[in-house]
């Protein structure tokens, strides 16, 4: 199977006041095409940093990041943004919806940013799948947490990306809703043959993955 994401000896550290914190220490990792990987570990183990670097939201201090075989940590800002627009979909723990736009606009946002005309039928299909078609004119703060996360999933799918990066997608939800969200993510994966990397603390969610990896002190355990 083809490798979709590859991190090669990636290191990343932050400075907090006078203190230097190493988030990733020569971290190497691969995700194959169509794979669903769950990344688990204690708080501060470097899971979210790994996800941000893999999703091009942050640059590594050292090491190389490859997406579909292309090294992305040397690319221009413009190309990185293009990759983010077309190849990667994000799902966050805090949903990260834009409060001033409707559900429809939030879902279409990646397409707007890429200056692509939304395929209305497809967006409708997405919203129907997450069960929120009848709420498409509402605003995020009119929805419950679970509903907002479902909008976030629909948004992640809108540009039909090959990779979905999810940062604790069920972290803010109750068990029942969390399970529903996980089922939705799995269904989407089946439907669009996506590669999923999910960071989670929740073993029940992690059990949906093909592979579970554990991180500790910025490296794989």
């Amino acid at each position: 199977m083809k490798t979709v994401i590859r991190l090669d000896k990636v290191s990343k550290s932050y400075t907090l006041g006078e203190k230097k914190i190493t988030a990733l220490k020569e971290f190497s990792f691969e995700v194959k095409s169509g794979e669903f990987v769950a990344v688990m570990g204690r708080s501060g183990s470097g899971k979210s940093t790994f996800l941000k670097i893999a999703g091009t939201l942050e640059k590594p201090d050292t090491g190389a990041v490859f997406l579909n075989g292309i090294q992305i940590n040397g690319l221009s800002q413009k190309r990185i943004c293009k990759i983010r627009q077309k190849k990667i979909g994000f799902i966050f723990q805090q949903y990260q919806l834009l409060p001033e736009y409707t559900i429809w606009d939030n879902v279409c946002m990646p397409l707007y940013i890429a200056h692509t005309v939304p395929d209305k039928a497809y967006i409708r299909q997405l919203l129907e799948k997450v069960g929120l078609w009848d709420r498409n004119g509402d605003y995020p703060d009119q929805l419950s947490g679970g509903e907002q996360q479902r909008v976030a999933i629909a948004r992640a799918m809108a540009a039909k990306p090959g990779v979905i990066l999810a940062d604790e997608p069920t972290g803010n939800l109750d068990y029942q809703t969390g399970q529903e969200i996980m089922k939705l993510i799995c269904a989407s994966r089946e439907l669009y043959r996506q590669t999923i990397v999910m960071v989670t603390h929740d073993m029940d969610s992690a059990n949906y993955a093909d592979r579970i990896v554990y991180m500790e002190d910025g490296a794989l355990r």
Partner: protein
Amino acid sequence: MKREKRHGIERELSIKRIRSQKKYSILIVSVLLLTCTLVQIGFQMSEGLKAAYIENRKAVYGEWEQVFVDMDESSVKVAEENPFLAQTGKIRIYGAISGDYLENRQMNIGTMDETAWKLGRLEMKEGRLPENEHEIAMEYSTLRSLGYEEMLGKEITLDVTSALSILEQGESKSYAYTLCGILKDYQINWEICNRHRFPTGIVTREGGDRIGSIQDMHMLVKAKEGSESVYEDLKDSEEFTCGMDENVEQDKLSDVSLPYMDFLENIRLLIGGASICILFLTVSRSIISREQFWRFLDALGMRRGQMYQIIFWEAVLFGAGAVIVGNLAGIGIYQLVIPVFEKITEQTLPQAIAWEGVLFGTGFSVLCIGASYGLSAVQLRILLKEKKKKVQKRREKYRKIVRFTPGRVLLHKWQMHRVRKSVEIVLLASVFLIVGFGKMEISTRQEELKVYQRLTGNGYYLSTMEITNSPGISKQTVDKLEQVAGVTSVEQYHNNEKEEFWIDLSEYAESEYFQKVVETLVAYLNETSIKEKISIEKVRLSLLTIDRWQDIQRFLRNLDEGSLTKEEFEQGDFCILDLTELQEYDGKYLSAFSPDGQGISEDTVQVGDELPVYTLNEDGSRNENPIPVTAILRGMKEEDVRNPQIGGSGISMIVGKNFWKKFGKSRIMEYDQIVKILVSDDVDAYDTEGHILSILKQGTAVNVQNNHEEYKKIRQELYSFIGMYSIFAVFYMILISIVLYQMFLAEKQEEKREWEILQSLGMEEKFQKKMHRIEVLWMMGCAGVIGVFTLWGACRLI
């Protein structure tokens, strides 16, 4: 278990928040502090300079508030017995130096008691006040004009008459006095009471008795503190029959007044308004931006009252410091600025702190801060109650995204936060307005100054005054003036100031030119009753009478129709009609210096036409004479347009000496004379002035206006204006910069999360940068347009 109740938690919460949010606190305090400083500078400037102005006025006119003139015994009694008058200083006039009316000044001999002397703030130049009946102290300029310089301690002889009225011919008698003191000039400044009410030669009571009985009595008075209304009572009193004149009224006629007092008052008003807006914006923004915090406290069960207490403590902690430090800084800056200001204006200003300004400034600062926090608390209450509904409504209105471009996203943002954005734009616009207004004012004044300098040239104007009743400056005097070294030209003119001549233009009612002249005349008049009297049948005529052939030359050079020979001129029966092209200035139509074919011209009147000119008799009937037009003047070259110029608004004529005779009028008493003396640039101005004055004292004297001095005065005024305006503008801009910076910072923080989301969805950083660039351009553009329009509107209004 009994729970211990803890007090002052609100204060603690406020303090903790201020401590933890250092950057925010510094910003808020800077705005409050700078606003207080600005307010205090504004008050110090206006109150301080007002105090300086009053001090200057007192130095020139004295401290008296009212002068009672031509008093009779009953009026003296009423004044002396009035319990509300704190000081009454008597002036007794015994006689006048005979023949002195020719000097445009009545030189009275009289006494002044100690209170009058003190209230008048008279000062000795040399010597002392008289102590016996044979001594006299005289004003310096009087002595000079009588040729009694260098006579201190020596005997002088004065021809004194008891006839105070210029028109009366009284017998005069010679009196010998020893000149014991020379007073600094004061009479020249005491304009309001026609000067001649005050003695220019001061003698003792016994010295006065030598001349005869008291001819006239005046009184300088000052009311007890807070009893100024006594003057109104006295005015209304039937027993009090004398005249009353106010000291303050003299300001209008003097040139000791500080420039731009009105401007200062307006600046203070502007500072006040701006301070209220800025403080309210800053405080309200700081409170509303903490919406989450308030909602959280609300969720924890905090009562509204407790929230208001947190706001109150913040106001106290921030405000108290800002009021104290800001106001002190304002006083300090003002004290630093004053010496500079004195240097520029060459005026002595008091260094003392204007305590009224301190009081008002501090009070105003406290009021503004208190009101801002109070209003913000009300806003918070509304926010916690209703915001959701409001936001929802706005969202419904602006929900559609058409295209996701920086401009569209920006527009959406502006629609969602239109109040905030409008405020930011208005603040920016106010900067444009302030800068534009200053620039415009300065340029206008600079232009005026240039024109003044160009048109007047280096020289002097001698003019008789309305109150003179003097036969004016004789031809002989003018001839003598021409002989003074350095004098290049002397011209003499006569204006009809007191006698009203009218012209009936109903025959030309269709003429746009004359219609505009009437319109302009009406526009210049303030009083409705006078406006109503002006019509096409009744237009006031401006006359310039010229006696000497050489003085009319520059008008003759510019004649468009007709001509005037020397013989015709000597006969004195000519009329040159000024029909200079009119041009519009702010809705008014004034004569243009040189016609360029763009304005409104008049060509229906022809040389030889007879114009119906008339004066009004006491019974309202007309005394009419048709005046034939000898020549027409339609424009002057700039080098010829030097004051006195005919033209302006109204119909003007240059006429000969016989014009007046036709109406049975004697122009001797009815005109104002102007003599223009031009001197070469390399001449010592003061030397020349000395010569001119020495010629005038032998003949007829008048006000001497030194063009060079006038120019210097206008330039100083300009500098002082620039100085004051710069101080204000710099402070205002600093303040606005901080306020806007704070607002933008708060916005950026709010948007941070939004941008992070958009970036995770693939938005490029340059999109955000582009949006900010567009935003800045839009804001500057909008602010510029609003600023320019407001400026235009304000200028039109002013």
